[in-house]
C-alpha cells in the first residue's frame, strides 16, 4: 500500500514537472528570410523587425507565460531553399508559429507549404494577386493591398494633387521580370493576371494609366537577375520622352541603379515613381538624384498609428524609438512590416490563449473594421482571400534627403505638399 502511494506521488510529481517544463518551453517562431542574395537588403531589415518584436515581448514577460524563441534561416533569395527551410521548421523544428518571408517570388511557393500543414501564414511581403487567388485559407497579408492595385494610388495621387493641364500625358513603364513588379505593371497596363498553370485570375483592362488618359509610350522589362545595362535602358527611356517614368522592381538595389542611370543620361521626366526606394540605402546610393522621386510605402515614421504589443498600447512612435535604441539607425518599412506581422500573430495567440494554428486562423479571419488587429502599420482585417480591407497605400516622396509622406492627404497630419514636377537633374 505504502509502495503504491509512493508510486502515485512519484507519478504526480513527474506529471507536474512535465507540465512545468512545458509551461517553460519557449514558443518557437520560425522564419526563412533572404539574408543574402538579391533581396538581402530587405531580408536583413525583416530580420531586424522580427527580432525587435520578439525581444520586446520577451522583455515584457513573454506570451502565455512562455518565452519566445526566434529561429531564422537564410534562404539566399532562392525559392527552393525557402521551401526546404519552411518544411524543416514545421516538421523537424516543430515550430509553433511561422512568419512569412520577403517578396512575392518566395512567398508564392512557400504559401503552398504553409497551407499543406494548416499553418497560419502571415505575409510581410508578397503582394502579387496570383498568391491571393489560390484559395489560401490561412494566409494574411500585412501590407495595404495586392501589388496589382499599387498603381491606383499613384494615378489617384496625380489626379488629386496635380492641376489637369500639368498632369503627365505619356508614360514609360520599365520593370524587372519579377513576380511583384510584373503585378504592379499588370495593374498599370491593364493586363490579364494568369496563374502559372493557366486560368485568368483577374482581367485588369484597361489599366490605371489608360483609365486616366495617360498614354504608354514605352514598356520594357529587364531580366530578374544579372542585368547590368542600366545606361542603355535609361537612354531608351529618355528617347521615349515620357513625362511619367515608372520603374518597378522588388529590389532596392535595382532602384538605385535605375535612378543613377536616369540621372546620368539626363532623362528629364515630369515625375519619377519607383516601387522600391524607401530605404536609407536608397538615399545613400542615389544621393541627390533621389530628390523628387516618389515611392509607395506601407509605413511612414510620421503616421500616428496606434498598435498593441504585449497586451499594451504600442504606437508607431514607440516602435521608432525602440528600433533606434536597439539598432542605432532609423527603421524603414522593411522593418516595420515584419514588426506588424509579429504584432498581429502575438495578438492572435494572446486572444485565443493558444498556439493552435487552426484557432489562430479563425480568430484572424474574424477580425472586423471595429475590432481589427492593431499594428504599427495601422489596423488590419482581411477578406476571405487574406487581403486587407479598406487600406489605401501611402505615397511618399524624397524631399531634401528625407522621405516625406505626401498622399493620401486627408488621413493624417504632417503631410508634405507634393513636389511636382520633379526637379531636373
Amino acid at each position, binding site marked *: 500500500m505504502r509502495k503504491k502511494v509512493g508510486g502515485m506521488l512519484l507519478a504526480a510529481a513527474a506529471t507536474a514537472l512535465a507540465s512545468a517544463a512545458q509551461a517553460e518551453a519557449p514558443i518557437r517562431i520560425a522564419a526563412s528570410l533572404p539574408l543574402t542574395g538579391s533581396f538581402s*537588403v530587405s531580408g536583413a531589415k525583416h530580420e531586424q523587425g522580427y527580432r525587435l518584436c520578439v525581444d520586446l515581448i520577451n522583455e515584457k514577460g513573454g506570451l502565455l507565460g512562455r518565452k519566445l524563441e526566434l529561429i531564422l534561416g537564410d534562404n539566399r533569395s532562392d525559392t527552393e531553399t525557402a521551401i526546404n527551410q519552411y518544411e524543416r521548421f514545421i516538421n523537424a523544428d516543430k515550430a509553433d508559429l511561422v512568419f512569412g518571408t520577403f517578396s512575392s517570388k518566395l512567398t508564392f511557393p512557400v504559401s503552398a507549404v504553409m497551407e499543406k500543414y494548416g499553418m497560419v501564414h502571415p505575409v510581410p511581403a508578397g503582394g502579387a494577386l496570383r498568391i491571393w487567388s489560390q484559395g489560401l485559407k490561412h494566409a494574411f497579408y500585412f501590407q495595404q493591398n495586392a501589388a496589382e492595385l499599387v498603381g491606383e494610388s499613384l494615378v489617384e495621387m496625380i489626379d488629386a494633387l496635380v492641376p489637369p493641364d500639368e498632369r503627365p500625358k505619356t508614360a514609360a513603364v520599365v520593370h524587372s521580370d519579377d513576380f511583384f513588379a510584373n503585378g504592379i505593371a499588370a495593374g498599370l497596363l491593364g493586363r490579364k493576371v494568369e496563374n502559372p498553370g493557366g486560368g485568368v485570375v483577374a482581367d485588369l483592362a484597361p489599366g490605371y494609366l489608360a483609365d486616366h488618359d495617360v498614354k504608354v509610350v514605352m514598356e520594357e522589362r529587364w531580366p530578374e537577375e544579372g542585368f547590368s545595362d542600366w545606361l542603355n535602358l535609361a537612354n531608351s527611356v529618355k528617347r521615349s520622352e515620357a513625362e511619367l517614368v515608372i520603374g518597378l522592381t522588388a529590389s532596392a538595389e535595382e532602384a538605385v541603379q535605375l535612378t543613377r542611370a536616369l540621372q546620368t543620361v539626363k532623362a528629364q521626366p515630369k515625375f519619377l515613381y519607383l516601387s522600391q526606394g524607401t530605404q536609407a540605402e536608397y538615399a545613400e546610393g542615389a544621393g541627390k538624384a533621389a530628390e523628387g522621386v516618389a515611392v509607395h510605402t506601407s509605413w511612414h515614421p510620421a503616421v500616428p498609428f496606434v498598435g498593441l504589443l504585449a497586451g499594451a498600447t504600442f504606437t508607431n512612435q514607440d516602435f521608432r524609438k525602440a528600433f533606434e535604441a536597439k539598432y542605432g539607425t532609423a527603421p524603414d518599412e522593411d522593418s516595420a512590416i515584419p514588426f506588424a506581422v509579429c504584432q498581429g500573430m502575438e495578438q492572435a495567440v494572446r486572444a485565443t490563449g493558444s498556439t493552435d494554428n487552426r484557432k489562430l486562423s479563425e480568430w484572424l479571419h474574424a477580425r472586423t473594421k471595429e475590432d481589427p488587429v492593431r499594428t504599427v502599420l495601422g489596423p488590419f482585417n482581411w477578406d476571405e482571400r487574406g487581403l486587407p480591407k479598406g487600406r489605401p497605400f501611402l505615397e511618399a516622396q524624397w524631399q531634401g534627403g528625407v522621405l516625406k509622406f505626401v498622399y493620401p492627404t486627408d488621413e493624417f497630419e504632417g503631410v508634405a505638399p507634393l513636389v511636382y514636377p520633379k526637379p531636373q537633374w
Partner: protein
Amino acid sequence: MIDILQVLVLGLALGGVYALMASGLTLIFGVMRIVNLAHPIMILTGAFVSYWLFTLYGIDPILSMPVAALVLFVIGLVLYKLVFAREAASAKYSEMTVLLTFALAMSFDGLLGALFSNTQRVTTPSYGTQAIFLGDLFIPTAQLYAGIASFVIIGGLMLFLRYTRFGYAIRATTQNRAAAQLMGVNVEFVSLVTFGIGLALAGAAGSLVSFIFSFFPAKHWEWIAILMSLVVLGGMGKLMGTIVAALLLSVIAAFVGTYAGSTWSTMTFFLALFVMLLVRPQGLFGDRIEEA
C-alpha cells in the same frame, strides 16, 4: 545615326569594365589552369576597399585602385600558398580548382557579409552620375574614366608580359608548363606571383565597379557566368581574346537591349557562348584544340 552611335558608345563603355573584370580571370586560367570561380567575389572585395576608403576618408575610387590592387595581391599570395600550391602536382588540378574556388567564393561571400553586412553599397564620386554631352551624343563620365583606367592597366599588363623577363616567364609557363620548368623557369614562383597579379587585377576592377554598379556581397554570383563566358569566348586564357570578346559582346548586347528588349541583352553573352562552342570551340583567339 546618333542613336546608333549612342548605343555603340554605351556598349563600349560597359565592355571596357567587363574587359578589366575578366582580364585577371583569364590570366590566372592561362598560366595556372585555375578556373577561378572566386574571381568576382575578389572584385567585390576590391570594391569594398575602395568604398570604405571613399566613405571614411573621401579618397576617390580611381586613386584608391593601387590600394585595392595591393590588398588583393597579398590576399592572392596567401590564398595561393594556403589553398592551391599543395595541389599543383595533382593530375586533376583543374577540376580540383573548380571546387576549391567555389568554396572560396562562398567563404568570402559569407565573410564580406559578416564584416560589411549584406546591404547594397555604391561609391558616389561626383562623376559617378555625370555625362559629357557632345550635341545629342553623351558619354557617361564614370564609364569613360573606368574605361580609360582599364585600358591603361591592361596595356601595362601587356607590356609587362611582353617586355620583361618575368613576363617571358609567365608567357612561357602559359604555353607549356613542363617545358618552361625544364628551361629553368621557377614555375611555382611564377604561378604564385601570377595568382597575386590576377587578384590584383580583380582588386583594381573592383575599385572601378564600386562606382559603376551598386554592389553587395552576393552580387558576385551574377557576374561569374558573364565573366566565364568572356574567358571562353576569348579563347581560354588569351588576354587579347577576352578583351575583344568583352568589347564586342557588350556592344552587341547594347544593340540587342535597345532594339529587341532588355530581357535579351543579358542572354546575348550566353547565346554567343553557345554558338562559339558549336562553331569555333577554341574561342576567338584560341589555339586549335588537339585531341588528347
